[in-house]
């Protein structure tokens, strides 16, 4: 009863044509573009890796073999679990966490400055300067980082000419280039949610706290950060998810010894041609990431509804 009331009110408000369009567009987006592919991936991940003629045949039954493979490794291997893949998995998550914290540390002061200074034109120029580099596509940006951080790149040249180092530092091998590239890739997704929230913070609250004797760190700890929490968590969630799932930057900027978990997934799909295994790996990544985000939200007492703000 209530549901039909809501629907008829929805159509009354938007008209039949617009209402239908909205429903279809959202439905298409949610079901066709998001749910269906993910469900088919889920389905894939539970199937055997079979040559096409045998698909749908008697051997095509559900199995946990790919999930087992991620945890235990190939049967008959020397180690009792899949040390290589699990190691990469954990390292990827830790690195994504690190990149997220790095971005947060970089963006919070900047977002605070942008949000609280009513500098008008100057701030708008700053924001524009932040956005314009994103017109350059991701591959180009990653290769640009590779050049900057290369043996004869700008940074090494500069350090050598200043006499601070004798021989070039291998930023690629040390993963400096990778973390910089990843940190840079999604930095806007951190700045803008925080900036939006802080912009709406009443300056008087900061002044009131200052008037009551609070030093700057306490003002941030007790007044600004609690207020900016929805923006911070929204930014962190996006940066973490996207970093953990990034492919281009690790591919281009990663050192020879460092592998990103997405690269393993990519290998299974592409070079290995083993879609079910790739799907299983991707699903595990997705679920673990969601789990991490949800537990972080619980830890910092952020509600799901706040993130949408």
């Amino acid at each position: 009863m209530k549901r039909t009331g809501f629907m008829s009110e929805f159509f009354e408000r938007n008209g039949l044509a617009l209402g239908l369009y909205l429903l279809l567009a959202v439905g298409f987006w949610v079901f066709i573009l998001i749910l269906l592919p993910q469900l088919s991936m889920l389905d894939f991940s539970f199937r055997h890796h079979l040559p096409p003629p045998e698909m749908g045949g008697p051997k095509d039954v559900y199995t946990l073999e790919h999930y087992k493979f991620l945890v235990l490794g190939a049967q008959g291997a020397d180690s009792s679990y899949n040390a290589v893949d699990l190691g990469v998995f954990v390292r990827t998550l830790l690195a994504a966490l690190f990149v997220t914290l790095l971005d947060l540390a970089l963006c919070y002061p900047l977002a605070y400055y942008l949000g609280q200074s009513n500098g008008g034109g100057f701030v708008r120029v700053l924001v524009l300067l932040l956005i314009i580099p994103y017109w350059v596509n991701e591959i180009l940006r990653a290769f640009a980082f590779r050049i900057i951080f290369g043996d004869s790149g700008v940074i090494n040249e500069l350090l050598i000419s200043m006499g601070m180092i004798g021989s070039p530092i291998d930023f690629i091998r040390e993963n400096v280039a990778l973390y910089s590239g990843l940190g840079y890739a999604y930095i806007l997704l951190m700045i803008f949610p925080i900036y939006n929230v802080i912009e709406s913070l009443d300056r008087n609250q900061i002044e009131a706290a200052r008037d009551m004797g609070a030093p700057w760190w306490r003002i941030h700890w007790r007044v600004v950060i609690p207020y900016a929490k929805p923006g911070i968590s929204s930014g962190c969630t996006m940066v973490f998810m996207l970093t953990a799932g990034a492919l281009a930057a690790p591919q281009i900027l990663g050192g020879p010894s460092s592998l990103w978990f997405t690269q393993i997934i990519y290998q299974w799909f592409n070079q290995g041609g083993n879609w079910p295994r790739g799907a299983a790996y991707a699903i595990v990544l997705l679920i673990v990431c969601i789990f991490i985000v949800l537990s972080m939200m619980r830890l910092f007492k952020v509600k799901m509804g706040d993130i949408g703000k």
Partner: protein
Amino acid sequence: MSQGVGVNLQDVWIRFGDFVAVREANVDIEGGSFFSFLGPSGCGKTTILRAVSGFLEPSDGKILIGGNDMAGIGPNKRPTALIFQNLALFPLMKVWENITFSLEVQGVGAADRRKRADELLDMIALAGQGDKLPSELSGGQKQRVAIARALCASPDVLLLDEPLSALDLKLRQHMRTELRQIQQRVGITFIYITHDQGEALTMSDNVAVMRHGIIDQIADGQSIYDDPATPFVASFVGENNVFRGKVKSIENGMAIISTNRTGDLHARVGTSARETMKVGDKAMIFIRPEALSIAETNSASNHRIKALVTNEEFEGQAYNVFLEGGEGKEIKMSLVNQGKIRQSSMGKDMFLEYDPEQSIVLPEGELANE
């Protein structure tokens, strides 16, 4: 109660680029008194408050609190507490945490803070509401929480930036009384900023009236009302009828002013102009609506103005009668409602009588809202 800590402004100038927000302010605020800065918006009163609280430094001159020069001392180090126009309560802290934030800053433990909060909540008649969020309180309650929060730091000087302006009329009048009572109870110096002359007059021991960054007059409320120092003060504080003319004669502080439309008017020379006013000067005479009355028909008084009644309105406690004959503006007369039915005199000529002692003449100058 303590004697309170005084505040002194000595030749204070505050400039923003080429704009002079405050011009040569010299104010001595007695410790433990209720002092108001009154003026229209943009007159520099909030700027003065921000300078006293330490959010901006004067371009020139000194600000002393309790005799100590405050130059270079930040707002967090001054013995002042500021109540903002929008109150600026912290929305994510509970009421009791809001109130005791200054103690939290000082490192006081939670149990002691809670105790102090409950005492203050008692004082502001909000006992038991400490665990609410500010958004769950009404406007008047928020107001009181802001006062408690400011008092919690035990400041020597409480600065209030039009804190009542967001409240509705009834509540505002109630809060005036309450603020005055709180001030008398805690005995500290209150500096109050307002554009509402009613607030300034009812609560303050002394009022400074400001315009364009200049302080025109500092005096107690009655002197401001009865003996304004400038035409601006006379026209900004309360209502006033203005007549323009030239000084014809001055004798014993009383002057006769010749006007174009209302003939010769007799008036007392304002104290501020006693020494300077000369015969032949351009002058303005101010007669308050309540200082006018209807002349007795056979009165031989020469303190009369003849004018045509153009409008009448009933305001409850008073009748307002508007008459033609002022300089450009109409003359307004307020008659106390004594419960008798009044005969309308619309469109008729009327003789008004005024008391020269209650009429003030000042050298011509700028009026408010011109």
